[in-house]
C-alpha cells in the first residue's frame, strides 16, 4: 500500500522519498534513487546540478528537507526550485521548525508544498497549519485519521499567522 500523508485536509497517497546520509557519508557520494526525492541541505548543495538535471531530463520534481538547525537563509535563493520543502521534527518539543515555516511563507514567499514530518501528531496539527504547513506526515504509531479532526481545534486565533496575516484586533467586529 502506498504511503499516505495529510494534504489539503485529507489523506492522500505520497510518492516522495526522504534521502538520509549515513553517518560520515560524504554528500557528494549519496546515491539518488528514482522518483521524487527530499534531500538534506548538504546533498542539495553538493549535487545541485545533478538534481536540477533530473528535473529537466525526467520531469522529476525537486524537494529538500530541513533539520531544526538548518538556517533557511542558506537556501533562500533556491526556494523557487522546490516543489516540496519538508521540515523535520525529530522531537515534538523542538519548536524551531515553526519559525522556519513562517519565515519560508511570510518572508521568502514560498508557495509550494510545505510538509512537516517526524514526531508530530494530532495535537500539533493546528499550530503547524497556522505557521504555514499544508502537508503532514503523521509520526509512527499515531492515527492520521484522528489528526484530520485537529484543523478546527480553535474557531479563532488572536495573532496573525502564515494563513491569516491579520491579527484578530484588525478583524474584530467593531
Amino acid at each position, binding site marked *: 500500500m502506498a504511503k499516505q500523508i495529510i494534504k489539503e485536509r485529507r489523506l492522500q497517497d505520497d510518492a516522495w522519498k526522504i534521502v538520509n546520509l549515513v553517518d560520515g557519508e560524504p554528500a557528494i557520494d549519496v546515491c539518488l534513487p528514482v522518483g521524487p526525492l527530499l534531500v538534506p541541505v548538504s546533498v542539495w548543495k553538493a549535487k545541485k546540478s545533478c538534481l536540477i538535471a533530473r528535473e529537466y531530463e525526467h520531469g522529476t520534481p525537486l524537494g529538500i528537507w530541513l533539520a531544526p538547525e538548518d538556517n533557511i537563509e542558506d537556501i533562500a535563493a533556491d526556494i523557487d526550485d522546490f516543489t516540496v520543502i519538508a521540515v523535520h521534527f525529530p522531537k515534538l*518539543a523542538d519548536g524551531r521548525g515553526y519559525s522556519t515555516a513562517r519565515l519560508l511563507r511570510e518572508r521568502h514567499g514560498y508557495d509550494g508544498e510545505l510538509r512537516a514530518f517526524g514526531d508530530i501528531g494530532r495535537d500539533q496539527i493546528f*499550530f503547524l497549519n497556522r505557521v504555514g504547513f499544508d502537508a503532514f506526515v503523521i509520526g509512527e504509531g499515531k492515527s492520521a485519521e484522528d489528526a484530520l479532526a485537529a484543523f478546527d481545534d480553535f474557531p479563532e486565533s488572536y495573532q496573525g499567522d502564515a494563513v491569516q496575516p491579520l491579527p484578530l484586533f484588525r478583524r474584530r467586529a467593531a
Partner: protein
Amino acid sequence: MYQYDDYDHAIVRARVAQFRDQTRRYLAGELSDDEFRPLRLQNGLYIQRHGPMLRLAVPYGLISAAQLRRFADVARRYDRGVGHFTTRHNLQLNWVKLAEVPQILADLARDELHAIQTSGNCIRNVTTDHFAGVAADEIADPRPWAELLRQWSSFHPEFAYLPRKFKVAISGATEDRAAIQVHDLGLQVVRDPAGTIGFRVYAGGGLGRTPLLGQVLREFLPWQHLLSYTEALVRVFNRYGRRDNAYKARIKILVKALGCEEFSGQVDEEWSHLKDGPSTLTDGEIARVAAQFRAPAYETFAADDLCHLAHLREDKAFSRWVERNVQNHKVPGYAAVTLSLKKAGAAPGDASSEQMEAAADLAERYSFGELRVSHEQNLILADVPQRELYTVWHRAKAASLAAPTVGLIQDLIACPGGDFCALANARSLPVAAAIQERFEDLDYQHDIGELELNISGCMNSCGHHHLGAIGILGVDKNGEEWYQITLGGRQGNDASIGEVIGRAFAAAEVPDAIERLIGAYLAHRHADERFIDTFDRIGEEVFRQAAYPHPHQSRRVANG
C-alpha cells in the same frame, strides 16, 4: 477589568474541549507520557509528589470577586478547600485528580478563568504591578498593555515549543514593583519628551541556577511596535536558544553568550522585517482595551476622614495594621489594602476557600468588586474608601486576613518546596514556619522593620531567594536538607542579586542564624535604616561573623 467578548469566550471554550479530548486519549492509552507532558504542562498541570498540581492563571494579577469565588468553589469541590497563591499571580491546587481536570477547566471558563500557558516551554502569564491603576507614581496604567500581550501570547502558533519557558513582566510606575529586571522580558512604561508612551525593554534577566539582571535592549520602543518587536525577540530565542541543556536554555544564556549588543542586533534584524506589519498596534485597539481598565466611579471624599483619624489614634492594633497593610492611593480618601496570606502555621500564600470567599465579599462591598494578587503572595483590595478601613480591618481579621505584617519578616515569600514540589531539593514550608514562629512577637517584628526574606526549595528559585535581603535556598547534601543563606538581594529599580555568605545550615540551625543576622543589624543600624540599608552601608563581613560565631565553620561553602 477586561471583559471577554465572544471571541475570547470561544477560544477558552475551545481549549477546554481540546484538553478534555487530550486527557481522554491519555487515560485511554492513546497518548504516551512523553506526548501528553507538553500538552498538560501548557495547561498548568504538573505531576507532583502527591499527584497532579493544577496552576490556574490570574492574568496580570487582576481578579474579580466572582472569579475568586469560583476559585474558592473549585478548591472546595475538587481539592481540599485550599489554594496556594504564587509569586507569579497564579493559584495552585495541590490535590486535584487528573480525570477531573477537564471539568475544573470547564467550571473556570464560565468565569473567564483558565490555566492556559501557566507552565511549559511557552510564553507564560504576564505579570505586573499589583498597584497598577492606583499607584501615585504611575506613568501609565500597564494593564492594557499586559492584556494585549496576553492575547498576543495566548496560543501563539510559533512559540508553543520554545527552548524553555518565557516570562514577561511589565511596570507602569517609577518604582518597579513587578521585578521586571529578573524576567526573560521586562518592560518599563516610559514617555518620550513629547509625552508619547513607549517601553524601555530589558531582556535576559532571571533567577534560577544562573541569576542575572536583564539588560536594556532599547531605551524607547514606541507603543505601536510592542507586539512586532516582542515577536522578533521571541523568534530569535526560538531559533537560537540552546536546546541541549535545560539549565542553559533560558534566553538569559543566549543574551549572555552573544553579548547584549549582538543579541540586540539580531533582534533588530529580525524586527526590520516585521516592523510596521499587521501586528502593529492601532489607536483603535488601544482605546478598545484601555476602556476596559477605566477607573471605577470614585466618590469625592476628603483626603483625611475624621473618623478614620480617630480610630488611628485610639486603636493601636488598627493603626499598626494601617501602617503596614494600607498604602496610599492616588485618589483622595481612598486607600489600597493588602490582605495578608501570611501567618505562622500556614504556608505563605495559602488561602482557604472560606478566606477566598471572605476576600471576595470584602472586594464586592468595599473595593468595586476587584482584587489583585501580589507577587509577594498576598491579596490586595486596591480601591477602599478610607472611612471603611476600620470595618474592613475587623472583617479581614475575622477571616484571618489581617496579619499586620506586610513587608515585615513574617511576610516572607516561600515556594511550596519539597512538601509538594517534585523538583525541590529541600522543604521550604517548615523553615518558613520556624522563622515565622521565632519572630511571631509583633513588637519585635515592627522593631526589626522592613525585611524581605525569601525561601526557595531548589535552584529553580520560585521563592525568589536571590531577591531577598535575606535569602534561603534549600540544597540537598547526601540526602539531607541543608539551607544556604544569601544576603543583599533586592527587587525594584535597584534590583540586585544576593550572595551566599558561607556554608549551609541544617534546618534546625536556620532560625538561630537568622536571629543572629538580625541581631547584627539591630546592633549596627542607624535611625530609620532598614536591614538592607545597614547591609549596604557596613558590608557583608559583620553579618558573616554574626552568622558563623565559630569562624572555622564559615570556610566551606557547601554545594557552591
